[in-house]
Each structure stands twice: as structure tokens, then as C-alpha cells.
């Protein structure tokens, strides 16, 4: 599964880690993030994320 980077602040969403602090279990693909999920660091929404090559 691909990692995605927040273009606003540089936070990396790693599907293997998920985002447990926000209730997103490890193994959750970026495309499957819940509605309303935002960057846990700076609050940017998913439209500001880009895939990490």
C-alpha cells in the first residue's frame, strides 16, 4: 500500500501504521480513510496529500 505525504506540513501517512490516535487502524489504505479524516499534525484535508513515490 502506498504512503501519502501532506503537502502542507510534510506528515507521512503510512498505511502500515495507520493513525490509531485518530481511530484509524494499521493496515488502512489512504483511499479507505474515513470521511473527515485530516492530517493529525496540521489539519490539512486529504485533498492536500500526494502519493510518495
Amino acid at each position, binding site marked *: 500500500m502506498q504512503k501519502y505525504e501532506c503537502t*502542507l*506540513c*510534510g*506528515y507521512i501517512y503510512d498505511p502500515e501504521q495507520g493513525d490509531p*490516535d485518530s481511530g484509524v487502524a494499521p493496515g488502512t489504505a489512504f483511499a479507505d480513510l474515513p470521511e473527515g479524516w485530516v492530517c493529525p*499534525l*496540521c489539519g490539512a484535508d486529504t485533498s492536500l496529500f500526494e502519493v510518495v513515490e
Partner: protein
Amino acid sequence: MAAVQIKENIYWVGAVDWDVREFHGYKVPYGTSYNAYLVIDEKITLIDSVKAKFTQDMLDNISEIVDPSKIDLIISNHVEPDHSGALASVVALAPNAPVVCTANGKKGLGIYYSPDWNYQVVKTGDTLSLGKYTLSFVATPMVHWPDNMVTYLAEENILFSNDAFGQHHATEGRFDDDVGADTCLKRARDYYANIVLPFGMQVQNALKALGGLNIDIIAPSHGVMWRDADTIAALLKKYDDWSGNRVQDDLAVIVYDTMWGSTEMLAQRISRNFEDQGIKAVLIDLRRYHISQAMDALTEAKYICVGSPTLNRGPMPSIAGFLCYLKGLAPKGRIGMAFGSHGWSGEATGYIEDALTQCRFELQEKMVCVYRPEKQPTREG
């Protein structure tokens, strides 16, 4: 001369603000400084500026060394007005000088000032030769804004760190050894707790990115420059500990307000319970202390207890304000507890527990009483 020489051809040209007492909700009882730096080389270079009202002080300091219109290069590490506030004046005097910043910096400066400046966007790893000296840049997004970067001058091992490693105090001396390591580290912690705390992950990333560099001097944008080797080592360790969420298991902070003294009595009881277990307890009465002082106190505390009586079916506004501030600054890995006395309804402690849960603290059972603690049994421990 008001400008201060750091190394041959490298100067502090900023301004000391003896009078400022608050920074967007953060109380700064000791004032602060806005640190701008001038490098005299083939390219005369200004690194950051000052809050707008101190523009003339900075220009006067620069003029002691060189005519400001001769500035060839402007480095903007951060968009926030306490550092960019005089940039427009410098650009007006030296309109051909490129303004070097991150992509987010160009966006931010474009909104605050003008999108038409001669921007030169840099990213991590880019370098610029000034002649004898070389600058390299490391983007540090969200330490503490999206636009932040730091600038390293290799030949003298100086890290121009902008807000990172900053401290809010106005001082006569410009260096850590002028003021004393203990005081400077205390001020650094207060700054970290109120400004940098939410961004632990980004600070860790920045520390890794800078790990390979020899650093003899850290020159931040507020407070003293760090040049004592032992103090720098202590400071870097502190930043690593704070950003790595390493706290003291034997420290508790108890923040409260009180109407008739009952919640205060509970606070004191909780404090004694902690002390009985060998845990040092610090009491913060919000009638006397500001929420920013509470944050400094809890930087390294494992236990954070928050107490409020119930006023009109909610917490006292002081505590509601503190909880709002605490949630935003987001300390990690703490154990929380709510407490409070109440009369006929008792919504405050539930409100506090909700807030501490949103902070993702592990919660201990709350302590409550009706009107007077000594009139009924309460949970011990």
C-alpha cells in the same frame, strides 16, 4: 555599537523588546527579542528581520556596519510577523535582493506583504554561496508553521534556527553564557511548552535531518544565542526528550480554580496523595497563574490533574480556557484526572474528563465532593 559581532563578518542586528508581555495568548513576563542576523561577504546577506515596530532599530543596527541598500540577499526562515515585520522595508531599500524562503514561505509572504517580491524558493538540501561562506537550508514544516526552515552556515558551524531553540526573555547579553545556562534552559522549556509542543514528530524529523551537522552556535529568532558546548548538548537533549514524549514519572501538575475553597482543598488532598507515593506535585491556581505558566509546569509531568467547581452547569471559564489551550498544544502519553466540588449539579468534572479524553490521556477515576470535602468520604489515592 548596538549591533553585536558573533564571528568575523557575522552580526546580530535585531531588537530587544523589554515591554512586550503577551504573544497571542502566551504570557511573556520577561519580554523578548527579535533576532535578525547580517553576514558580510561577497553577497551581503540579512537573515530574518524584526517585528515591524522595531524596523528602524534593525536598520540602524545594519547601518552601523553597511548601508542597508547594499543588502544582496534576504533569507526569510519564517513568515510570522515578529520576524517578517521589517522585510517590506528592507525590500524597498534593496529591491533587487532575492527573498529566499520555502514554497510555503513564498505563499505566506505573498499574502502578508506582496506576491511580486523577487522570491527564490529553496528546499531541504539546497545551498547558496555567499562568497567565503555557504548557506544550506533544511525545511522544518510545522516547527511551528508550514513555512518554517532553518539555515546553516557551514564555515562557522552556525545554525540559524529561527523559532526552534528560542526563548522569550529580554536580556542585556546576547549569549547563553551572559545570562546563565539554567535560566536560558528554563526559558527554552517555557517556549517549547507554549509554541512547539504539538509538533513533536516534526521536531524529531528536524533533529534527525540536522544530526550530522557540527553545530558550534545556535542562533534562534528569540532570546539568546547558544554557544556554550555543554549547554548546547543539554538543550538538544531536552528538545529530543520533549519531542519524544519522555516525561518524568514522579511529577504531577494539578491545575485548578475554586469558588469557595473546596476544589482547592481537593487539589491539596490530591497533592498530598501524590507526595505520599513519592511523586512531586505542583499546584497551579489559575487565579494566580496564567495558563501559559501551567503549560510550562506540565511539559515533563506524567500526571495532569484538572479541577473545577461547577458554575452554571459547566466548568469555570478559566478551566474551560485552559482545557482549550491544553487540547491545542496536545501533550502526549499523560495520565489525567478530573476533580471538583459542586453544589446541586456537577457537570464540570464530566466536562474535564471529556476534554482529557480528547487529549488521549489515560484517565484515573475522578474525585468529587458536594460543597465541602471534609463533610463526606472521598476516594483516596
